[in-house]
């Protein structure tokens, strides 16, 4: 649009005149052109996406997932749904059972009871078929880190049943997308924590899954890479994929996710679109209220900088 407005001016304008033309032409043509274009922030896209996704079919359905370790209930009757094209965040305090729930979805942790299905394929009944449509990034599990980044990507792709031409093409594109091209020949064990997270993310995507289950994908990733990852995830979701990810950062979840599931002590205490869950206040305030409604600021009276009391 800017180019058009310039061309509408006489061709022999001096460069200095062009600038003024640029500044003035918008008023004549349209009020939007000419200003520095502010990219639509993630949060706006997320709000828009929430409405669209709510109307999409459900791709992932967890039905009363329960996991008990002896007397301890790590997950109690967890049920939620993820719609196609949505970016769903799972949040909860430390030890709430987020990892347990996510690894039950990816087939890495057998639930004590309950059912989890992806595209109506039972993950625990028809494992291999379901696992073809799930991409997973577990937290705190090792990678085969003696392999180089390139070998690891190739390994992940072939294990998912891709042919070698596809693997080669996708591995190269994923490496570029995550900024890992120069590191592909180095062993993964030499990578920094953030790079390991990124190669793990790339491995989880190589078979073009329909659902990505990511446990703490943003942990240890630097801010620039994080926005890069957000971009990739949003593109993936815009293409019809679904993401379910956990994070400690409520700010991040509020910014990029359209749906959210809040888990406290192994149970779902709230779920729905981010706007519905936060109910007018910030997600953090809402979360605080949900996790410990009454005992705010209690205890620790002795913990203060000056020791002049008594």
């Amino acid at each position, binding site marked *: 649009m800017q180019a058009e407005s310039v061309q509408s001016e006489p061709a022999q304008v001096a460069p200095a005149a062009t600038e003024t033309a640029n500044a003035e032409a918008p008023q004549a043509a349209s009020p939007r052109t000419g200003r520095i274009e502010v990219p639509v922030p993630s949060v706006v896209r997320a709000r828009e996406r929430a409405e669209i996704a709510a109307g999409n079919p459900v791709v992932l359905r967890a039905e009363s997932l329960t996991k008990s370790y002896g007397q301890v209930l790590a997950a109690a009757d967890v049920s939620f749904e993820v719609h196609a094209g949505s970016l769903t965040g799972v949040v909860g305090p430390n030890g709430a059972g987020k990892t347990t729930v996510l690894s039950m979805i*990816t*087939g*890495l*942790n*057998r639930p004590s009871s309950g059912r989890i299905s992806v595209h109506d394929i039972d993950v625990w009944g028809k*494992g*291999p*078929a*379901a*696992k*073809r449509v*799930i991409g*997973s990034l*577990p937290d*705190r*599990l*090792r*990678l*085969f*880190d*003696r*392999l*180089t980044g*390139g*070998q690891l990507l*190739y*390994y*992940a792709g*072939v*294990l*998912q*049943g*891709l*042919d*070698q*031409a596809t*693997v*080669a*093409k996708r591995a*190269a594109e994923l490496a570029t997308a995550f900024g890992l091209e120069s590191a*592909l*020949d180095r*062993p993964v*064990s030499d990578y920094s924590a953030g790079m390991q997270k990124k190669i793990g993310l790339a*491995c989880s995507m190589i*078979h073009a899954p329909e659902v990505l289950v990511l446990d703490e994908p943003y942990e240890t990733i630097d801010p620039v890479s994080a926005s890069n990852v957000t971009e990739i995830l949003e593109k993936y979701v815009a293409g019809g994929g679904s993401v379910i990810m956990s994070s400690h950062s409520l700010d991040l979840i509020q910014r990029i996710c359209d749906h959210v599931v809040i888990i406290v002590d192994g149970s779902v205490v709230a779920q729905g679109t981010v706007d519905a869950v936060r109910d007018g206040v910030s997600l953090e305030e809402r979360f605080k209220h949900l996790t410990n409604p009454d005992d705010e600021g209690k205890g620790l009276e002795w913990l203060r900088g000056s020791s002049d009391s008594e």
Partner: protein
Amino acid sequence: MVARLFRLRVALLLSVFRGGFREVSRAVILALLAVLSAALLAWLPLWLAGTAGDRAAIDIILSSVLLALVALVPFFANLGSLEPRQFGAFPASPASIATGLFLSTLLSWPTIWLLIWMASLAALRPEWAGVPLAVLIAGVLTLLLAIALARVSSALVRLAVPARAVSGLRWVGLVLLLTTLPVLIFLVADALRSPRSQAIQDAATVFGWTPFGAPAAGLSYAVHGDVAAAAAHFGVTAAALIVLLLCWHLIVARSLTTVERPAPAGVTRDGLEIFERFPAKPRAVIAARALTYWRRDPRYRIALFAIPVAPVIMMAALWIAGMDLHVLALLPLPVILLLFGWSVHNDVALDSTAIWMHVASGTKGTHDRAGRLAPVMLIGLPLAVIGSSITVTISGDWRLLPAVLGMNIAVLLVASGVSSVFSSFMPYPATRPGDSPFAQPAVQGSGAGLAQTLSMLVALVLALPPVLFAAYAIAYPTFELNVMALVLGVLWGLILLGLGVLIGGKAFDRGAPELIAVTQTFD
């Protein structure tokens, strides 16, 4: 076509003498050496054998080996310069190309070498002078068979093996050569030591009925006046020749009408190291990964250092106890192979939690099991074969070779199969990835001793039947018993290995999430 191909052959023959003084002199020296070696090979049996009968037997064995090499060498290292596909663009029928290529092979350096060898044989065997017709038939059959074998095997490899796999094939050939060389050298050494051994006669009889040894065997019968036996032996080779010629024509026709499947566009497997040598299938990449880990991760190497120690101590103890050295020589290799196969009984624990990748991708348990055994098999099998020939050399009776080989292969395969089951059934804490290989596992106790003892016991018990049978065959070394021990050992080993992979794979399929949970507690 035929005449043209002959002209091409002559040009190729003479091309080695082209170039500067250095090249020409080198070619001449090589040619002289080749002539000398052919004549020496023809003279060798005279020196080795005491009696005419032994000499004939050695002749049969030697010519069989030579013809087998003629078939095998082009298969693994294809050096041919004229191949059917090069003539695909010319207006000639497949039949005329096939005939032309076949006949013109007469004018190649290997064929000329073969002719020199046969001429030297004829000159050095006075007894052949009485049966000129049989000599002529045997000579022509040998020559034609050699050409047919070389042509068929080199054309077959060009047709069936893609160009990018040729280097891999050469490696396989090298490994095979290295594994058979000790056996061959030992056989020759043994023949040197005791030329009147009955075994050489037995072997010659067996070799004589293969197409490779049949011309020489037929000639030997002709010398003794047994025309019927001679004709039967010549018939074997003639039949083989007809089959090979048919194959040759079919292969040429097929080569001329097909092209090699081009490599898929955009495939670059550069920088994948070992992975480049394996196909893009789950089982194969797991094998490549295991091999990469054995190479890069010191934990695997350290575990192997202890293996030779046990048999050395055992040998010392038994030697002091006064055991016969010939029997003692048989012991170390099976013990080493047992420990080697057993060494991967906790393989999953060494991967630690990284095993999630196999689980999350829905990898089949049997693929996981089979792939992991690649390093053990790739090192263990050549070790078993080379080691068996060395064992037999030390113990001093080469008739034991089949039984010893069968026993060792059985022990290796059984131990690997048992390991396959135990590594998915009973993992116990191992040194974590990245820790010093000498470091103790982070978690102690939890079943390490039980898993080790149990897996070793099971491997020992299951390896017992073929070992006992082999021991019997070693005690009563007849040819039949030895071959039976070999067959039984290999079959028994294969069956138990297959069962181990199946059962271990099932256990992996069923208990994969629990396996992750267990490795998490170790980590």
